[in-house]
C-alpha cells in the first residue's frame, strides 16, 4: 500500500513537473521573440530619428 502511494505521488509530481517544463519552453520561445522585437524597435527608433534629423536640416 505504501509502495502504491509512493508511486502515485511520484507520477503526480512528474505530471506537474512536465507541465512546468512545457511552460518553460513557451517562455524560451517568447524570449527569443521578445529580444527580436526589442532590436527591431531600436532600429525603427533610429530610422525615425534619422528622418526627423533630415527634415529639420532641410527646413
Amino acid at each position, binding site marked *: 500500500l505504501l509502495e502504491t502511494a509512493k508511486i502515485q505521488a511520484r507520477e503526480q509530481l512528474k505530471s506537474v513537473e512536465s507541465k512546468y517544463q512545457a511552460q*518553460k519552453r513557451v*517562455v524560451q520561445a517568447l*524570449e527569443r521573440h*521578445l529580444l527580436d522585437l526589442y532590436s527591431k524597435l531600436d532600429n525603427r527608433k533610429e530610422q525615425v530619428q534619422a528622418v526627423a534629423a533630415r527634415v529639420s536640416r532641410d527646413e
Partner: protein
Amino acid sequence: MAEDCVRNFRSHYYEKVGFRGVEEKRSLELLLKEEPLDLEKLCMFTQRFPIPALYRVMVWKVLLGILPSYQSCHGAVAQQRTEQYKDLKHAVDLLHLVSIKTPIPTVCLHMYRVEMGLTPLDLEIEEPKDDEDDFLAIASTMSELAESELDAYWLSRCFVLQFNSKHADSLPHLPKSLEHYLALEELRLLQHLKVCGALVRLPYSRWFRRCFAGSLPNSSLERVWDKVISGSCKLLVFVALAILISFKMTIMKMNMADGIVGFLENVHFDLYSLYFKSHTLFKNNLSSNMSMQI
C-alpha cells in the same frame, strides 16, 4: 502541575540572573527537532517569546509556509522555491522592469506583481499604488533581515499574502481598538488627541498595514513580526498604544494635528522599553485565555 512550578521557578531564576534567553532557546531547539514540526506549538512558543536570532528566519519560513512541516522535505521544497524565484527574476529582467541598479525591494515588488498577474499592460506607465508602497516597506525590512535576495523575496511575498488573508478583515477595526485601550490607559491623552483632531489622522496605515515596517528599528520590528507571523495582529494595537504613551508628554504639549502626526511619523522609537511596554500592555489587557506570559 508540579513540573510547571519547577519550570516557572527556573524561568524566574534565569530571568533574575540575566539568562532568560537560555531556557527559551533550549525549548525552541527541542521543538525544532520534532518531525514533523508542530506548527501549533511553534506558534505558541512564538507568541510567548521572541525567537532567538539564529532560528528566526527558519521559523518564519515554516510559519509562513515557505518550508513544509516535514523537515525531510525541506531540501526538495527549497529547490522548488529557488527555481520559482529564478524564473520570476528572469522574467522581470526580460521585461526590462529592473536593471542591476534596481534596489532589492523594488525587484521583489516587480517579481511579486508578475507572479500575482498584476503587471500593467503598458509597462512604461507606472503608477505606484498604496498597497505597493506597503509591499515595498515590508520588502525593505525583509531584505535587511534576510541573508539573500532569494529569502528576501520569499519572506516578503508570503508575509504579505499571509497577512492579507488572515488579517485584512481586522485591519479596519484596529484604530477603534487602539482608541478603546487608550481610553483605559490614558484617557487624558485620548481626549487631547480627539480635541486637536489628531486621532483620526494618526499614521494608521504605516503602523497597521505595514506592521510598523520603516517606523521601528529592525531589532524591535523583528520581535513584533514574530507575533504577527505566528498569528496575532492585535499586538500591533499595543505597539501603537505603547508609542503614544511613551511620547505622552511631548504629544500633550502639541496642539496642532499636523505637528503631532509629523512628530509620530518621524520619531525614532526606543526599541527595548517600547517592546516591553507593549507586551505588558498586551498581557494586562488580554483575557486569561490568551497565553501571554511576558
